[in-house]
């Protein structure tokens, strides 16, 4: 069964303290891995998509990487405005749900100044 596990569930950082979020996945043929950011009361906001092992994407203080079994979201020198829940999702070629996304529970990041 296709599955996504994110860790840690919650992460508290000081402003400027770099860290990484983990997303482990099991999927029948990976079409793509997606990272979203979700703020309270809002819908998931697209950040990155990765398609093959070894691929990396960057945007401001965020960098996403992908291996055959997991993805990392690296946050460099975070600011309080980076506080949010970060969601990882996969899309598989042979998934029961077709092209739907399979989500993890998310990592809630809090950055204090």
């Amino acid at each position: 069964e296709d599955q996504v596990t994110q860790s840690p569930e919650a992460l508290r950082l000081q402003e400027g303290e770099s860290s990484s979020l983990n997303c482990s996945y099991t999927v029948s043929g990976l079409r793509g891995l997606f990272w979203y950011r979700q703020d309270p009361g809002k819908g998931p906001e697209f950040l990155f998509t990765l398609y093959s092992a070894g691929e990396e994407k960057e945007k401001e203080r965020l960098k996403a990487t992908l291996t055959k079994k997991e993805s990392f979201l690296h946050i460099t020198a975070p600011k309080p405005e980076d506080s949010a829940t970060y969601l990882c999702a996969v899309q598989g070629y042979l998934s029961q749900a077709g092209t739907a996304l399979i989500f993890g529970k998310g990592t809630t990041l809090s950055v204090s100044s």
Partner: protein
Amino acid sequence: EAGVTQFPSHSVIEKGQTVTLRCDPISGHDNLYWYRRVMGKEIKFLLHFVKESKQDESGMPNNRFLAERTGGTYSTLKVQPAELEDSGVYFCASSQGASRGIQYFGAGTRLSVL
């Protein structure tokens, strides 16, 4: 460009009543998905439209849920009759392509069944 819009943002109903949620996708997006997040759980897929056709409804929990997408534009999700376990946040997403397409999400409808 307008994003995915969902109405209402919050709905409170009693068990046994009917509720209809609406989703307006990004203009030109043929693919429309409905998802649901129940408290404490991950976001889960409900169904997928391509234009006006149901491509996949394997995630629909039971026959109390009915989704439509007339004319291939906006979509509605009706719950009738609502049960307590239907409470949660219902998200709609749309994409241009299905395979590898980026799905853009609405803000969601929070449904509370009392």
